[in-house]
């Protein structure tokens, strides 16, 4: 067994060059696998958006720190859950702290609240607050943006979100209920 690998084999694994154009492909694949894994149609939009946010975030980090390294996405349908893990390999610097998962500004529409251990501290590798617009305040501001808008969106969409340090970077793990177990 490869250290750090889950015992459960992912239904689909993919890697892609950290380019914005490929994020859409990742979204489409994730949505297709989620549907095949039995995720309810009403939740597919949430899967699509959350995976897109996680991949966009990883692409930005990779472009800044390691543009030659691919972004990794694992999609697993098992035990009545559909789980997505997006892993970047850029934040290997020991001085980097894990990003805070902001709370959503509004209650979730379905499912239980996040069970995520909400870690403290900013992520210096990802100063992304609301895309690359220079007019956007980096840490919130008069317009009321959360410090990390992408993570705020993910936290508001996924049932369960966990950000953890992997051997070479950070991974965002998120999951939704499913009825099937596509393999």
């Amino acid at each position, binding site marked *: 067994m490869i250290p750090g690998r889950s015992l459960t084999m992912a239904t689909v694994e993919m890697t892609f060059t950290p380019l914005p154009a490929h*994020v*859409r492909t990742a979204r489409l694949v994730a949505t297709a696998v989620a549907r095949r894994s039995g995720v309810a149609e009403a939740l597919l939009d949430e899967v699509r*958006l959350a995976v897109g946010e996680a991949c966009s975030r990883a692409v930005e980090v990779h472009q800044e720190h390691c543009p030659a390294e691919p972004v990794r996405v694992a999609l697993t349908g098992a035990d009545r859950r559909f789980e997505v893990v997006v892993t970047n390999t850029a934040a290997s610097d020991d001085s980097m702290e894990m990003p805070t998962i902001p709370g959503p*500004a509004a209650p979730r529409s379905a499912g239980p609240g996040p069970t995520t251990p909400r870690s403290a501290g900013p992520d210096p590798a990802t100063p992304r607050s609301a*895309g*690359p*617009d220079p007019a956007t305040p980096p840490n919130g501001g008069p317009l009321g943006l*959360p410090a990390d808008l992408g993570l705020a969106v993910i936290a508001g969409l996924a049932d369960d979100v966990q950000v953890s340090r992997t051997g070479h970077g950070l991974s965002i793990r998120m999951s939704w209920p499913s009825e099937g177990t596509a393999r």
Partner: protein
Amino acid sequence: MDLKLEHHTTDSIEVVDVEGEIDVYTAPRLRELLIDLVNNGHYQLVVNMEKVEFLDSTGLGVLVGGLKRVRAHDGSLDLVCTQERILKIFRITGLTKVFGIHDSVDEAIAARKSEK
């Protein structure tokens, strides 16, 4: 689907019609258009999102950036959106309190003119 952008002037308000997906790949085009409009003196903007199929936080950032730019000139940026899946991301991020969100372009223009 790619992003399609058009704009026209109605009652002295610039209406931007957006169609397709606004994400990390396409959002820079919308940002450039909004910057161009502001640089050309258009400070009253309505962004019609009725044909937007996907919007992520990068797109939200572009809209917030546009709002900041027009506000610097005492202008406004209102949105037209009735799609629940798009509205949801505004609610999650609390941006429903930041933008004026309307059901139609006519309603957005009327609301803006009534505030003048």
